[in-house]
C-alpha cells in the first residue's frame, strides 16, 4: 500500500459527476494496489453513493454540490460522499432481499454499497448527509504487493 494521501473533489449535481467520481476513485484504488475485483466493487459503491447524493439528496439542483473525498491509509481506502439534501434515515430503506421487495425497480443502492465495502457509515450533517465507506485491502492484495 502506498503512503497515505488524500484527494477531494466538489461535483455538480449531475449524472456526469457520477462517472467522474467513479473514474477518480477507481484510479486512486488502482494506484493504491487494490485488485481488479476490489476496484470494481469500490467503483460501484462510489457510483451508487454519488447517484444517491445527486438524485435523492441534491435532486439535481445546480445550487447544491456533492463533495467526494478519498483517502488511502494503512491497507485501507476511505471514501466520503456528502450532499446538501434534506437527508434520510437508512433504517427506513426497505430490505431489497425481502420477498415483497425483490421485484421492486429501485432501492438496491445502499444494499450494494454494504455488500461491496467493509464498512458503511451514514451520518446526518447540519446540511445534508455524509456517507463514509471503507474498503480494506485483502490479504492476497497485500501479499502480491509485498512480492
Amino acid at each position, binding site marked *: 500500500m502506498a503512503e497515505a494521501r488524500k484527494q477531494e473533489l466538489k461535483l455538480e449535481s449531475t*449524472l456526469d459527476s*457520477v462517472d467522474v467520481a467513479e473514474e477518480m476513485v477507481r484510479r486512486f484504488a488502482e494506484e493504491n494496489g487494490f485488485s481488479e475485483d476490489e476496484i*470494481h466493487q469500490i467503483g*460501484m459503491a462510489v*457510483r*451508487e453513493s454519488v*447517484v444517491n447524493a445527486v*438524485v435523492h439528496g441534491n435532486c439535481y439542483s445546480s445550487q447544491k454540490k456533492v463533495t467526494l473525498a478519498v483517502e488511502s491509509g494503512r491497507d485501507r481506502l476511505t471514501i466520503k460522499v456528502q450532499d446538501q439534501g434534506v437527508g434520510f434515515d437508512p433504517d427506513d430503506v426497505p430490505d*431489497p*432481499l425481502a420477498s415483497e421487495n*425483490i*421485484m*421492486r*425497480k*429501485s432501492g*438496491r*443502492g445502499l*444494499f*450494494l454499497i454494504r*455488500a461491496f465495502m467493509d464498512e458503511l457509515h451514514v451520518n446526518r450533517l447540519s446540511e445534508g448527509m455524509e456517507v463514509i465507506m471503507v474498503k480494506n485491502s485483502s490479504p492476497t492484495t497485500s501479499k502480491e504487493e509485498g512480492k
Partner: protein
Amino acid sequence: MSIKASTRQVDKVTIVDMSGRITLGEGSSTLRETVRDLVSKGQKKIILNLGDVSYIDSSGIGELVSSYTSVNNQGGSLKLLNLQKKVHDLLQITKLYTVFEVHTDEAAAIKSFG
C-alpha cells in the same frame, strides 16, 4: 462506454444484443425503450443477450426487473443470455438470479420457448 442495443429475429424469438454499460441514464433508458418497443409490437418471446455488457448498476438491475415484469404482464417472457461474471454475481447478491431464466447457449435459450 456507451450502450448499444440491436435486435434480431430467430423464428418467433426476438434477441436483443446489448453491449456496454447498463447504468442510470442512457444505459437504463436504452434498455427500457428497447423492451417497451418490442412489447408494443406484440413480441412476447424476448432474449436479452448480455454477453457484451460489462457493468450493470442498481438502476440497470431495476430496469431488468421492470422489463421482466412488463413482458410477463403481457403474457410473454424475457430471458437472459451470456452473463459476464460480474453481472452474474450481481444477480446472485440481489437474489434475482433465480427470478430470471438464465442461459449460456443461444440455441438452447431459443428452444426453451417451445
